[in-house]
Each structure stands twice: as C-alpha cells, then as structure tokens.
C-alpha cells in the first residue's frame, strides 16, 4: 500500500509534465492538422530558459524561494513562446496548403535544428541545478519504508492543475478560445466571420509553447538535471499521451498525460525500469485497437 501511494505520487508528477506538453500537440493538430514534431524541443528550450533564468536570478541575489520560482516561471513562459511563434512563422506557415508530408518533414528538421542550436549554445554536457524546493510530508511509514510527499510535488501538481483549469477556461469562455475552436472546425468559415486565422494559429503555437515551457520548468526543478536531448523522449511520450487521450481533444491530452505518467511509474515500481517505455507504448496500441479515436476523442456526429 505504501509503495503504491509513493508510485502514485511519482506518476502524477511525471504525468503533469507529459500532460502539459501533450496539450500543445493536440491543439496544433486540432487547428492545422499537423503533428508538430518540434514541440518536444520547445519543452527542452523551456527547461534551459528556466535554468538560465534561475542562474541570472541567483547572480542578481534574488534568493527568496517563492519569488525566484515565480520570476523564473513567468520569464520562462514569456520567452519560450517566442520560439513557438517563430517556428510557426518561419517553418510552417509558408507550407500551409502544401502536402502534409512536407510539413511533417519540416517539423522533424526543425526538431533536429533546435536540438543542435541548444547543443551549440549550451554544450552537450548535463546541466545540473541545486534543488530549490526541499522537504515535504511524511505521509505514511511502514518499517523502513517512508512515503514522502514533497513540497516540490505538491507545488508541481497544484501548478499543473491550476494551469489546466485556466487554460480550459480560456478555450471555453473567451473570444480567443472561440476563435481557436472555430478555426479548428472550419478555417474558411472562421475567416468568413472575420477571424484572423493566421493570428489565431500563431497564438495557438504561443499557448502550446507556454504550457510546454512550464513542463520544462517542472522537469528542471524536479529532476535537477537537463541536457539538449530531453525533448526527444518527453516529446514522444507526450505525443503518445495526446493520441491515447484522443488527438484533438484537450481533456484527452491532460488525461493521457497523467495516464502515461502513472503507467510508467507503476511499471518501473512493480516490474522493471528498462521496459517502462515499452509499457506506455504497448498500452497505447491496445487502446487504439479498441478505441481508434483514443479515450476521449469522438468520431464526429455532424450533419453538413
């Protein structure tokens, strides 16, 4: 039981990261029908931006933890989306209307480019960071085994859930969210009611990048070490999460993220660490066999 609870906590933390990245995949897919394979790299750049911000804040003598966290998060969410925006402007927009394969190959190219860009600027070695949030609760204890819920994990879960709520409200309640849904459902008609479709697509990349950058921030403060290659596997896992939840579905992406995180944590906890990735992908395959549209993706009931 104790062990179970510990894996549950670990899985949720990991799932928060996947879920936040998965939202970007699913939104971009929804609105322009492409898989933005460079999205994992945006997450990685978010982690680096956080690290650099922490370093700068440290050098500036800002050491009060809540303030440092807040500033680092805010600056990361502000700077990283510039990459998402530029990516769309420079690499994807010129290809709009061309075959899907062209956009897909470009996305893979951009992914490699961004990896190399960070490798060149920051070097290939691991970048460590001191833990910034320490301590936690002892939830349970059985003999030598202690279930720990760290303040860090509480912070991560609250931050993620809070962001997901805010984000869902934006999509459902605001003019921007309605414009995004309109573009997703019928881009031509969206333009015909006066929506600036290009701008809406840009903002979608910006929002996706902002959430992925938070995932990078979480990755950094949770694991304390990053390198230029972390975007690859996290990107694939998050993409898997998006497909598992039903690509195009926002709640699906969040659910998928948490599920993949939990599967990984439990598999590593009860079976072997080596095969945790296989487990996640295996479950994806199983789900897709029985529900080809993913868990929350619905085939459309439309009369047009």
């Amino acid at each position: 039981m104790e062990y179970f609870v510990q894996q549950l906590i670990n899985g949720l933390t990991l799932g928060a990261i996947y879920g936040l990245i998965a939202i970007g995949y699913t939104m971009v897919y929804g609105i322009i029908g492409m898989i933005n394979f460079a999205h994992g790299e945006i997450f990685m750049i978010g982690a680096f931006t956080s690290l650099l911000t922490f370093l700068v804040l440290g050098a500036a003598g800002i050491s009060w933890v809540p303030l440092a966290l807040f500033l680092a998060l805010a600056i990361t969410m502000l700077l990283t989306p510039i990459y998402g925006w530029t990516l769309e402007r420079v690499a994807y927009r010129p290809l709009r209307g061309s075959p899907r394969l062209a956009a897909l190959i470009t996305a893979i190219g951009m992914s490699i480019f961004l990896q190399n860009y960070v490798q060149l600027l920051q070097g290939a070695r691991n970048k460590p960071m001191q833990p910034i949030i320490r301590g936690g609760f002892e939830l349970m204890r059985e003999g030598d085994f202690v279930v720990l819920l760290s303040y860090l994990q509480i912070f991560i879960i609250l931050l993620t859930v809070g962001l997901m709520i805010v984000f869902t409200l934006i999509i459902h309640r605001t003019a921007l969210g309605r414009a995004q849904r309109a573009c997703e459902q019928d881009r031509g008609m969206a333009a015909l009611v006066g929506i600036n479709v290009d701008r809406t697509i840009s903002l979608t990349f910006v929002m996706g990048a902002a959430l992925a950058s938070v995932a990078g921030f979480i990755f950094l403060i949770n694991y304390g070490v990053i390198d230029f290659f972390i975007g690859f596997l996290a990107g694939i896992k998050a993409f898997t999460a998006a497909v598992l939840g039903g690509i195009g579905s926002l709640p699906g992406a969040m659910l998928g993220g948490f599920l993949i995180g939990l599967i990984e944590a439990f598999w590593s906890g009860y079976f072997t660490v080596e095969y945790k990735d296989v487990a996640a992908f295996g479950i994806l395959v199983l789900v897709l066999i029985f529900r080809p549209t993913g868990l929350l993706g619905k085939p459309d009931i439309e009369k047009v």
Partner: protein
Amino acid sequence: MLSVSGVHTFYGNIEALRGVDVEVAEREIVTLIGANGAGKSTLLMTICGNPRATTGTITLNGEDITQRPTFEIVRMGVAQSPEGRRIFPRMTVEENLRMGAVTADPQYYDEDRARVFDLFPRLKERVEQRGGTLSGGEQQMLAIARALMSRPRLLLLDEPSLGLAPMVVKQIFEVIREINESQKMTVFLVEQNAFHALRLAHRGYVMVNGQITLTGSGDELLANPEVRAAYLEGGH
C-alpha cells in the same frame, strides 16, 4: 457599393468565372440566378477573397479589395451565409451566433440576438444545442442569423431558401426585405427559387457558365421569355 469588374476565378485549371461584371448599389437587393455549376457560389466567395480572382478588380465602397485577406473584407462590413451553411458543428447555437458577432460592437449583442430569435423562434428553443445536430432547415436559419449578427452593410446570401419549408421561405424573403428597408442593408443573393427572388429584388443578373448573360430589373427578368423558359418553367 460593390463593384465586380472583369473577374476571372480558377480552381486549378477550371475557369469558374470568366470575366464577370456586377454592380450592387447601396441599399439595393440584387439577385443572381443561374443553373447548377454556373459559378454563382464562386462569385460570392470570390468577393470575400477565397478563392481569389486571378484577374479583374473588386471594389467595396470604392476601395479595392481584390487582394485583401478574407477577414479584412469581412471587417469592412460584409457578411456571407455561404453555400452548404457551414455552421460550426461542435459549437452551440449561441456560440455560432457569437461567432457571427465577432466583428460587431459587443454592446449590440443582446439586442441583435433577440432580433434573430424573433425572426427564427426555433433557434431560441435550441440555444444550447450543438450546430452539427440541428436539422438542415434549422442550420439554414442559423447560417442566416449568424450572418445578420455582424450588422453587415453588405449581406451575401447563397441560396437562403434551400431546404426550408415554403412558409419559412416566404418568411425569410420578408425578413430580407424588412432589414433591407429598416436597416439600410444592401443584399446580394443567389437563388434557385428564381420567382420569389426576382420578385423581391430590385435588380437581377443571370449567370451562365461563369459569365453574366442578362441583367435587368426584377420585373424585367421575370417577364423575359428566356428566363421564364430556363429558370421559371413549371411556375411557382
């Protein structure tokens, strides 16, 4: 207010419009009739910049809009209820109306919403229903209502009577006349229902194979033997 001159539009190699000239004056109701595939819908869409005219010019209130992006043309006061209705399927009726009002001053929203619900009480009963699950006729009402929500100065209607019961068609044509008079709204409409449409319109155009072949007042066209033979046969 709207002037289309020498417009050619292509879909790939297919030339759908072959030098079209159309004038619509302020506060007019102008009807465009023509057989299936003549290019009527293409003309309405070309006015909105999608697809684009390859040659020729389109001006709105004297301003050249031929190369303007669609959303900018719409923001100049043009609204279209397009062919196929194109309701946002996963949005509710209410949200679809909100989409129609994207370019409008929000202060008029409640008033305009009440007005379209007056016109189409059926929509009012279904505010929370998703667009994609409405019946064809209800979708048609919603498409027209959505177009009205922007308070357009130029309203483009592509077969507004399609799929509607005769009673509702009559009602819609009355509504068009009413808003044209009371709100100084210019209307350019495409219709298969040529008899009603020409009676409603101040002027009309006949399109054949991507070209305008005839033009005149509504009554002139109604009396024209060619028009009668081609578009009014079987009567009304």
